[in-house]
């Protein structure tokens, strides 16, 4: 693929792909009753319009995001098709920027490192892996249809970039912002904090290990003191301050509505509608059983098992995966964390796949999925097969009205979950094998 070996070509193609999709989308929206634009984008732009007229963005039903997003899309409230599409342009530019950051991280110099100073890839290899994101039609389609996930992805990749470039304050601000935008990136806090030790600070692998051993011999107080190094404290303070500042400001401006729709809603939502989560059918049953007071219907289970669902999810994604893997390979660890978080989540839709897709280019170069193509193809085939099975069951329910809830949908959801667990196991093992592929040495 000589075509895809030049960064300039790939970025031009990436921009062109998005431009074509944007234009195509505008045409389809103008002439067809079936819209290219994502429903969420109408939610954002309606909210921006409410904002422009001096109302709260929460006046729009189902607006469950920070008001910051509506502010960011303020220009979409201006008249004309171009301004209406300006939010999509922003999202598309964000996801190209995410692609550029992926490339920069793979090159190993934040865009400006000297040759040979890190474990960076050569240009051709780096751009090929970055193309997984940049030229991915799914990614380009999601952002040009107007889903805000691109915004979050650039935020999260920038966070990784900042940590690897030792800009801990910037990283803190980015994490605070990401958590403010969507709650889930808080999981990265754990892995980044654990990653920011003396070894990665000094950039010397062997020294780090020795220090670690020394730390174990000394008392627990010294251990705590060693853990609380400058980088970690800075990162934590900047992250917490950014999050509190942004959320505090939004709460002050929009009050209860902001807290309710942006955060509490996600904690109290029932998630009864069919989705990829393995918990879905169980939640459907228990939520209706607890709502109906009638004793004749399904008897309530003694313990609400689904309320314990956060245990495996958070144990893996915020504790064990960061602790065991973060220091070996931060980028791949963040992939594993996201993968665990999504796989064990109580709700899962296809937009969540983007959350881990953005980390794939960091993991794949050293993964057994590529080293052993047969394994890689089997995994991909199983993942696709489970998806197709689920989608077919979902279609039968949604459009043909057949009750596939407890049968096909549940089985396919569980099958998809097991495929994801399998993939997660492979990722974990690969990180265990591979080690610090993306640990940059400090610039001398």
């Amino acid at each position, binding site marked *: 693929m000589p075509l895809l070996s030049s960064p300039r070509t790939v970025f031009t193609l990436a921009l062109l792909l998005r431009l074509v999709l944007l234009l195509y989308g505008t045409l389809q929206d103008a002439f067809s009753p079936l819209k290219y634009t994502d429903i969420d984008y109408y939610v954002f732009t309606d909210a921006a319009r409410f904002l422009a007229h001096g109302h709260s963005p929460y006046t729009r039903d189902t607006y469950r995001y920070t008001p910051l997003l509506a502010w960011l899309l303020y220009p979409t409230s201006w008249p004309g098709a171009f301004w209406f599409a300006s939010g999509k342009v922003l999202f598309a530019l964000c996801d190209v920027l995410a692609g550029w950051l992926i490339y920069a991280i793979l090159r190993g110099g934040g865009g400006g490192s000297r040759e040979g100073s890190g474990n960076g890839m050569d240009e051709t290899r780096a751009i090929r892996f970055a193309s997984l994101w940049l030229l991915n039609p799914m990614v380009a389609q999601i952002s040009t249809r107007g889903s805000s996930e691109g915004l979050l992805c650039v935020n999260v990749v920038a966070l990784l970039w900042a940590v690897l470039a030792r800009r801990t304050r910037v990283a803190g601000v980015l994490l605070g912002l990401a958590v403010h935008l969507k709650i889930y990136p808080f999981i990265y806090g754990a892995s980044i904090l654990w990653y920011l030790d003396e070894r990665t600070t000094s950039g010397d692998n062997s020294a780090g290990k020795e220090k670690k051993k020394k730390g174990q011999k000394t008392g627990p107080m010294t251990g705590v003191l060693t853990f609380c190094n400058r980088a970690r404290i800075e990162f934590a303070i900047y992250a917490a301050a950014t999050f509190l500042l942004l959320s505090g400001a939004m709460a002050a401006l929009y009050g209860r509505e902001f807290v309710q729709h942006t955060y509490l809603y996600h904690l109290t939502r029932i998630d009864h509608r069919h989705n990829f989560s393995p918990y879905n059918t169980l939640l459907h049953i228990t939520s209706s059983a607890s709502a109906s007071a009638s004793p004749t219907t399904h008897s309530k289970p003694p313990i609400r098992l689904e309320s314990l669902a956060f245990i495996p999810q958070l144990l893996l994604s915020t504790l064990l995966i960061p602790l065991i893997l973060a220091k070996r390979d931060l980028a791949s660890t963040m992939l594993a964390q996201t993968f665990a978080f999504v796989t064990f989540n109580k709700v899962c839709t296809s937009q969540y796949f983007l959350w881990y897709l953005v980390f794939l280019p960091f993991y794949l170069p050293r993964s057994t999925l590529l080293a052993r193509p047969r394994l890689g193809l089997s995994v991909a085939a199983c993942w696709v097969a489970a998806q197709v099975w689920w989608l077919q069951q979902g279609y039968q329910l949604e459009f043909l009205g057949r009750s596939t809830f407890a049968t096909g949908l549940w089985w396919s959801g569980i099958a998809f979950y097991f495929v994801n667990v399998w993939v997660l196991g492979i990722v974990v093992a690969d990180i265990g*094998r591979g080690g610090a592929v993306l640990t940059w040495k400090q610039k001398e």
Partner: protein
Amino acid sequence: MKHRITYFLHDPSEFDISQIEVKSDALSVDSLDAAKEHRITLGLSELPPELRRALSECYELHLRWTRPTPYYHVSPLLSRSSSGMHLFYTPQLGSSQNFFCSAFKQIFGDDLKCINPATTFTNVSILSERFATGASQQYHTMLSSLAELITYLSHKVCKGRDYACIKQMQSLSSAAYLDIDYDTISHALTFTAFWDSAPSSHGWTDKHSQLGPTHQTEVGILNSETPTEPEELKLGGFLTVIGEDDHPSPTLFAFPSRHQPLPQSSELDYRTAFRDPTGLHPVLQLIFPSSQLESPGESCALHTYLTLPSYLFIDKYQLSDPLFLASQNLVALHSIAGETDLEAPDWIIKTWGSAALLELSTSISTSASADEELTVSIPLHLRYLSPSNATLGQIQVPVPWPIVFWACVADEGTKMNVNPFDRVNLGYDGLFGPRTMFYHVPTAPTKILVQHVRVPILNLDDAQYVEIGTVFAIALGSLWVLWKLLRVWTGGYHENVSKKTQ
């Protein structure tokens, strides 16, 4: 107590004055082939205590019950309302609202969805501020018969003994519609029942007596005459006040009417259907013969008023794009009131549902004219219904046929309320100005004006393994990942790699 009984003759040529007999204290009719309206006006003191208590919480109350089977519409009672029971209600300021629902359920049936008005009723959207008579809250339920009300009245009013009284109450079972109106200003409760024809094929053979010195009973036997003004209806016949008149007095009068029939030349009607397959997003279709879609006037627009139980809802955002609306033969969603949550399942919805007013497109595209039918599609969405046992994974839920009418603007200065048979507070009338006339489109011949839609629901008999299965799967998956993590932690993979490389 006041009674007003009006017979509307089906065929005046078959009527003979000898069918009426007036005595000093009674009036009898014999084998009268007619529709009948019976209006009873009661003072508050004449009501059972629990009803008085419930009414003390109301500022105004208008109940409109229509039977699910079609009936014959007779002039001047031309208004239409979708089947089931509609309530339009304004609470008394500062009242507790504690008794309304309990009295309501006691009278109409225990299984009705009514927690209290503040929770179950929905706010009426106000499009026309000038229309002063509109109530502030709305409710609807698919009540298919008045059996519970008849039992209640027989027990409370007739005390279970008065046979004539019980018989009169039981006649409600064949009524086409029943209106109950109350407002604090008049302090009177009005019952209006309508029968499109007598229950027996021999027509009405009734005897109306004067019930006491304070009780007025007026009987009219009327038939529809051809009006001279286009906005008017005209009635002729006989009126008798029992105890005052010793013979039926002839009468002829005309009045402007809010509700109008279609022009006689028009054969327009409509039927409804759900587009197959329905899935979770059923599309309600209104099907018209396209050749008949001729407007009765220049200022008119074709509308439909939908009453949707809580399990069905309209996504107003979906109905905001002109291209999409046009593709469904819709012009606009003018009003949507009630439960519009786009995500909630039915089991957490506490309100009764929603009501919507849509304007329909009557422009026939060239491709559609070939099949001679115009289909208007109204995209609806189903909420998830509670899982249950003993179903085959689906249940049928009812939705009343929406009503369809041309709304036209009447001439300046038209006073609709001089009509002695005026009927307001039907839900849709409050969404238009006071000078609006409704030319009602009749329904195509059908057995029942209720459409059923199939809803897939989770069958709990199929789901017994779900709970244990999910827990098992989560445990197994977690343990697998934990095992992998443990091997990394203990350095298992490093050894593997080094062994291989050696």
